[in-house]
């Protein structure tokens, strides 16, 4: 699903934010990503959702070496990844429904199918009454839930969430995490960056911990930190990879 090998990332001429990351995420795994502020959690997620290219090393997504993939072949990969951005990134001129429907629209789905599906999901995250509201008229917690709905609507193979519960209270946060677990059960690989220790302890999932640019794994049944970079990675491949 995801394989990093000796990946390093620096911005411009700055210091390396991430150093020699080598790990694999097997399909259907569920991880928390933690680390102090500025440790590189968002940077790592950006590498995974193809918003940044690594400075060095090799990243394999869905069985394909991203470094060797041409720019115009990347969009199909991006469509298989759902992202909850730390700053939501909703489109202010579209309604909540239209925002959530966006990934389906870009993938060219039929409109009728979209509508029902999207409404249902918005109801699930507690926004049944705000289907036609625009983001500027939503509270931050509401925005965050719209962003979450948009990330999961396309049943992505990989779900990346950056601090998805930073603006909502614990009860609602748990509800969202249960939604992620449901997705995970039907095969989606999930990575959630968070500061919220109570969330981590409640769900008891393995934790990828970033610190000083390096990654350590805690309680990690489904992640393999690969000390031997030459190891066979085929077992980590997603059967559905294009």
């Amino acid at each position, binding site marked *: 699903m995801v394989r990093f090998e000796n990946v390093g990332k620096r911005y411009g001429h700055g210091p390396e934010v991430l150093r020699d990351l080598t790990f694999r995420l097997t399909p259907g795994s569920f991880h928390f990503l933690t680390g102090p502020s500025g440790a590189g959690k968002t940077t790592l997620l950006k590498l995974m*959702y*193809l*918003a*940044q*290219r690594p400075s060095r090393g090799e990243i394999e997504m869905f069985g394909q070496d991203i470094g060797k993939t041409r*720019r*115009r072949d*990347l*969009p*199909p*990969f*991006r*469509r298989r990844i759902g*992202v909850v951005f730390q700053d939501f*990134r909703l*489109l202010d*001129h*579209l*309604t909540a*429904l*239209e925002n959530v429907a*966006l*990934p389906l*629209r*870009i*993938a060219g789905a039929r*409109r009728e199918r979209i*509508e029902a599906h999207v409404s249902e999901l918005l109801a699930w995250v507690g926004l049944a009454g705000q289907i*036609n509201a625009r983001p500027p008229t939503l509270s931050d917690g509401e925005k965050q839930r719209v962003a979450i709905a*948009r990330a999961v609507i396309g049943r992505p193979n990989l779900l990346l969430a950056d601090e998805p519960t930073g603006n909502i209270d614990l009860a609602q946060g748990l509800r969202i995490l249960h939604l992620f677990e449901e997705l995970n059960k039907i095969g989606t690989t999930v990575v959630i960056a968070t500061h919220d220790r109570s969330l981590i302890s409640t769900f008891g999932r393995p934790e990828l911990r970033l610190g000083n640019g390096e990654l350590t794994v805690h309680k990690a049944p489904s992640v393999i930190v690969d000390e031997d970079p030459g190891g066979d990675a085929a077992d980590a491949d997603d059967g559905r990879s294009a």
Partner: protein
Amino acid sequence: MTPRRAELPLGGDATRRFIPLIVGAMVYLAALALAGTFALDGTVQQWSDSLRGALTVQLPGVAQDPEGEEAKARIDAAVGLLLETTGVLSASALPYAQSQALLEPWLGAGDLPADLPIPIIVDVSVDTGARINYEDLGQRLEEVVPGARINDNGVFLSRLVTLARAVQLVGLVVVFIVAVAAVSIVVFATRAGMTSHRDTIELLHLIGARDNYIARRFVTHALSYGLAGGLLGLALAVVTLAALALAARGVDQTLLPRLSLDLTAWVALLCVPIASALIAMITARVTVLRALRRLP
């Protein structure tokens, strides 16, 4: 069911109102400049044509024997000198009857008294490209046939052609500058659109939209305002040209530009809004795709 709304709401306020107006103004100016250039073209052609026969040399006539030896000698001397001059293509005297006819407007039709020395007119055709020194030529003519005068109508006309060509050149410069301004406006509008929707563009990119998908909105938007502005400008230009044509009724004569345009000119004018739409479209597309290529 809500109507399908665009991800990129480009028709926002400022663009919707001002850009077609500005493009319209550009098209209007380009159309006027083009029309002027075309109108001058016809006239310049006319002038150039008439230039070939417009240079005349006038020799003093012989009163009692207008077609006798004396007259022939004068003609031969003048024509000989003229034909030796570089730039002169041909030179021949008008028959006596024609010279006489030229005086009719002044003296009325009818028998002229025989002792009137009707001047001899030598028709000269010159190469419009050659720069003939008319003063020098005049002096040399005076030497071989005392009293000979160059009718400098042609000189005047040839300078007029130079001026008209210069004005036409300015017309083309104006069209060019207007085109540059129009392209700049489209690039600016597109960039401004991209800046004010940078978040939207980045998001669309991140969730897997292709560059073409994103560019398409900008392109159709540019096409629409390019076309709208183009038609507005053309309409204004046609009204202006019609008003000018009205004012020019009856002046359509020798020296002045024919202000009625021919078919080619009209077709060229009709092409202006099409060109503006195409320019807008292509400029927008290039601008957007170039900017998008910076995203990973």
